[in-house]
């Protein structure tokens, strides 16, 4: 019982942390390199415990992120829902990929996410973004193995401390 609660707390804490990381700015010239943290963390949980991540959760996280962002309510909700759907669909295969293939898959997912964002913004009447717009998915894919390993390690440690 206690173990379950700790795990749920850890799950919620990582998701909240991802929202914080999204809000924390990087120093000026590094700004385009910032990865899309909520997506990375949500993907990790998708692969690690797929029964806990549902489309509804992705939607709620996205709406929360939109509230913090304050740009367009529903934008990130749509993006995260679409991404989680694809990830859950291919979860069984993605889990057994070697790390570099997983990174490539994450790159694909993040690029798809950027295309969605581009579509939404163009529909909303914004101009096309500059080329730096496409750097962030690459950074996300490069960071993916580290995110995965660190979160996995932390999870294993928590479980050990718990028992």
């Amino acid at each position: 019982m206690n173990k379950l609660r700790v795990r749920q707390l850890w799950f919620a804490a990582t998701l909240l942390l991802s929202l914080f990381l999204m809000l924390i700015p990087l120093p000026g010239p590094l700004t385009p390199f910032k990865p899309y943290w909520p997506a990375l963390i949500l993907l990790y949980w998708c692969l690690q415990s797929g029964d806990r991540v549902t489309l509804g959760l992705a939607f709620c996280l996205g709406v929360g992120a939109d509230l913090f962002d304050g740009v367009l309510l529903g934008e990130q909700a749509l993006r995260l829902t679409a991404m989680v759907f694809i990830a859950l669909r291919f979860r069984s295969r993605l889990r057994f990929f070697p790390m570099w293939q997983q990174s490539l898959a994450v790159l694909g997912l993040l690029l798809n996410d950027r295309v969605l964002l581009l579509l939404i913004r163009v529909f909303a009447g914004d101009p096309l973004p500059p080329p730096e717009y496409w750097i962030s998915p690459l950074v996300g894919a490069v960071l993916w193995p580290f995110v995965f390993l660190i979160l996995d390690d932390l999870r294993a440690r928590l479980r050990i401390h718990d028992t």
Partner: protein
Amino acid sequence: MALNRDDQSPLFAPGVAGTLRLIVYLALACVLMVLDHRGGWLGNVRYGLSIVVEPIYRIAGLPSQGFQAATVAFADRQRLTETNQRLREDLLLANAKLNRMASVAEQNQRLKELLDTQHSLSLNVQLARLIGVDLGTFRHRIVLNVGARDKVQAGQVVIDARGVMGQIVEVMPTTSVAMLITDPNHAIPVTIERTGLRTVAYGSRGGDMLVLPNIPVSADVQSGDKLVTSGLGGRFPPGFPVGEIRDVAQTASGTFLSAQARPAADLDRSEDVLLLHDLAEQDGPPPLAPNAGPPAGMAPDPNAPPTAPVTPTLPKVTSPTTTPVPARAASSTETSPAGTTP
């Protein structure tokens, strides 16, 4: 065990229920977006949820604040003394300029009083600090630490020591969001200081420059020209520096000149900004002057009975004022013992 868990996401079978749910959620998100884009009620929702959002902004702003504190704490002495020296020189220069301007301003004020105009050179400003929060990719917005409780309103102009930074677009109880002038969705009416040509400066795609896409081909525009706000449009008051033109080229169609300008304000380095309180004059006719004509005491009472003009007004005015006073005093003496007895 693992196989049992995988029942929920089988290797190849497409889940119809999952797709259906996806469609429902996507539709919901689209509805939200359209409603928000059309109605713009995200601001209201955010205002309601600001109890949650604002502390999170403050916490998320802590790292950048700490970073700045650390740079100050670990900056070597020499750099600090250099900065101090530079600031002193700036202050000296600014004060000297101010002293020279003071007499001119006074003269200007007197002349304007002679001309009976309402413009004034004094600034009514409010200091605000930036909160270091990133509001999404390629969104040129900043968060300030003042809000509706500090009487901030949407549309107020944000400036720093060098020029116009942007305007407030969203107000929450203790924080507010400002759109920078380099946002692609932002436009600011400007005048080229040297020639007086009026045009509009838009934000650029890259987000660090301003674009002036429609200058007439015959216009005299050079790189190095200063841009100041023109005051047209009723949002930005006139005369504030906006930027400096960097290069001028013909547009692809050849019908206009297009110029690039660098913003005058330190958009990515300013920590303290000023909010202007006087909004520019609104469009349309000015409101009626409130105290035109004789003072209100001398005006006849519109509620007075029609017989009033016949009889002399002086005793009539005094008699109603004298009668309520004893009545009120009597009532107060009645109530005060009642209040003390229980």
